[in-house]
């Protein structure tokens, strides 16, 4: 047990260091870049204003508001202090709504959409991958190119195709939103049904993309395993194929879990853009509207939250991996 604590302890320390680094990047990047965000905002607010001193006053007002006129270090501590109080600042585009309030309403949509989609896509993809490796022949010949093609499509491309076929063409599902706009969120059956119906297309577009990528990876892994000595030995022993496949699946699954931990950032990024296609009320749509309206505090807070979510997911997968991988278990029991 002590060994486990060392393993997880190491992971926790690592994740904290990474978060601090990501946090610094999130703070520094926009400030290091040649453009001046305050100037951009001022320009937007003062369009049509004639007096030069007026524009100057607005500029200084905003500088004061965001503290960009203070030294970098002071700004940083101010930022950290506010964040620790859960204060992400005030949104420009939805003034005077606080950024934390906007995020609180959109974050759950994203989590509830992406987490199940990634899990379902991962499971289906891996099962298909093992089947392709085991059956080879015709199934493989069809499944492989289809998987490669599916994983070549960007998530938004898949989203648009599903949208056009099932929402516009067949009219089975709504085209946009997280629930019927005419409804007030409540715990009634009608509302839950509406959420469920709106959930389907974004969900499946993410799932389909993940299936393709995972199936390709799992197929290669499973082919390695199928050529290994223990499989040949088991066959000589006369163990049933179904049983062997189970072992192959378990062994080939381990690298796939690590692969998922490494790819989670890319998957989330793609899925956020897919959200936009359906105007799903999650973080993707939030960041789009923030970018369109040059809402600087909202962009910065959203990217920070996305980073944090990805880090937590990666950490969770690594913890799970620690429990599943027998080698780590063996190393810890020594």
């Amino acid at each position, binding site marked *: 047990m002590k060994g486990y604590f060392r393993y997880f302890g190491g992971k926790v320390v*690592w*994740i904290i*260091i*990474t978060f601090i*680094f*990501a946090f610094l*990047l*999130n703070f520094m*990047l*926009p400030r*290091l*870049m*040649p*453009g001046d*965000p305050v100037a*951009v905002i001022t320009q937007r607010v003062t369009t049509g204003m004639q007096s030069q001193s007026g524009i100057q006053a607005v500029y200084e007002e905003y500088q004061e508001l965001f503290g960009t006129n203070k030294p970098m270090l002071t700004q940083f501590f101010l930022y950290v202090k506010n964040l620790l109080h859960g204060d992400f600042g005030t949104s420009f585009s939805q003034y005077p709504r606080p950024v934390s309030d906007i995020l609180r309403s959109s974050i759950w949509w994203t989590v509830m959409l992406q987490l199940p989609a990634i899990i379902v896509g991962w499971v289906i993809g891996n099962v298909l991958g093992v089947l392709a490796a085991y059956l080879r022949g015709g199934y493989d010949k069809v499944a*492989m*190119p289809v998987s*490669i*093609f599916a*994983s*070549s*499509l*960007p998530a*938004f*491309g898949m989203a*648009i*195709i599903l*949208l*056009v076929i099932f929402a*516009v063409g067949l009219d089975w599902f709504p*085209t*946009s939103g997280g629930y019927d706009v005419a409804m007030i969120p409540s715990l009634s059956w009608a509302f839950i049904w509406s959420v469920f119906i709106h959930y389907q297309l974004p969900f499946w577009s993410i799932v389909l993309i993940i299936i393709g990528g995972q199936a*390709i990876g799992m197929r*290669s892994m499973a*082919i*390695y395993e199928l*050529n290994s000595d223990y499989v040949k030995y088991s066959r000589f022993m006369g163990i049933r194929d179904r049983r062997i496949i189970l072992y192959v699946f378990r062994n080939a699954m381990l690298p796939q879990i690590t692969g998922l931990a*490494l790819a989670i*950032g*890319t998957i*989330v*990024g*793609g899925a*956020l*853009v897919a959200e*936009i*296609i359906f105007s799903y009320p999650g973080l993707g749509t939030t*960041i*789009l509207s923030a*970018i*369109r309206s040059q809402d600087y505090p909202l*962009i*910065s807070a959203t*990217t920070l939250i*996305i*980073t944090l979510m*990805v*880090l937590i997911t*990666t950490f969770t997968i690594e913890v799970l991996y620690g429990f599943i991988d027998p080698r780590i278990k063996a190393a810890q029991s020594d």
Partner: protein
Amino acid sequence: MKHTLRQVFGSPRFVVGFVIFAFIVLLVIIYPIFVRSEPLGIIGQGTFFPPGIYVNAYDTVGSEPYTLKLDNAAAKRLASRLSDQQRLDKKDWLVAAGIPENEIDPANTEKLLEQWESNYDPAVIVPGMINARRNYFVRLNASLGGILATEAAIIAEMNAETNTLEETGSVDQTDYVNINDVPNKRLLPLGTDNFGRDVLTELVSAIGTSLLIGIVAGLIATTIGLTLGLIAGYIGGFADDIVMFFTNMFTVIPTFVLLILISYSIGQEQRGAVTIAVVIGFTSWVWTTRAVRAQVISLRNRDHVNLSKLSGHSTGRIILLSILPYIASYVVMALILQISSAILAEAGLSILGLGPKTTDVPTLGLMMNWAMIYQAQVLGYWWAYLPVIITIALVSFSLNLMNTGLDQVFNPALRE
């Protein structure tokens, strides 16, 4: 080298991917030779003209008419004017007048008209039909008569002195114009986009730009990844620790977030296609670094490398002659994947409105972005987004196929 090439081109996956990719590249090179119009030139006044051949209507009036007697010309003309509702109304009347319902097909214009002509009589009083409805059918019948009339359409000109219309010519219903006689026509195979730009010309130019973005970003990422991977793998020790510290960190921090932050900070005006490519390149070297490092570590203590070291060769020479040839296939595969993911990254960024600025060059992502802003997917203007998605998928599909083909050639465990 020759042998390797033959091996590579022996893999069916690689060949299919290569052919698709070569076709796309050839299209980008050859198309502008034949169609010399500005890719961003706005030709249409209005949004989303459907695909087709556009013939100047003014010119057709002036052209020499040919008389062709074609049987079903009147029916076709009617079919294009008769709305679905009018067809259904006719069916209603015919059913009410006692024609069996299964004999009436509203989609078959000729038969419907025949039945209508032979059965319809304004004097008949259909039981249960209100007067207004009956009058409607009288009007419908009269308007059909107007379309079916065989008189010519008259062309008139305004006389400036008398302010009256003077007949200058007429167009018979049997008049045809040879399309070769019409001086002004334009083929728009994919219609126009929301700005009224020719989608096909724009698309071909966009593929070029997107490929450029992919290649620039891929080369940057591969160069950085290769260098860092060689440093970490071959030199090892402290250098390895430092490189791996940052590599591990950037693996977990989502690239997407970095791209958003950097592109946003650069600002709309400074964002050109190459700038975006450089940004993507600088944020996606992580995978190559990891892969190259792992390969180099496994090569570092091989006999031929040790022999080279004992012979007193310089580090640069050892890397160039004893390490690089062994990881070359790996690096090429990594480059191919980098190119494909960079094209996707640009598209994702552009949809967020953080791509290259619109007025400069078209890219696949920007075309997507504008189609989305104008809701082309909901309004059914498929030509504005579908070709773009298909192209993105095909480019990335062909690159991925080439990659798996190479993988099969260079990775013995995966051979059939």
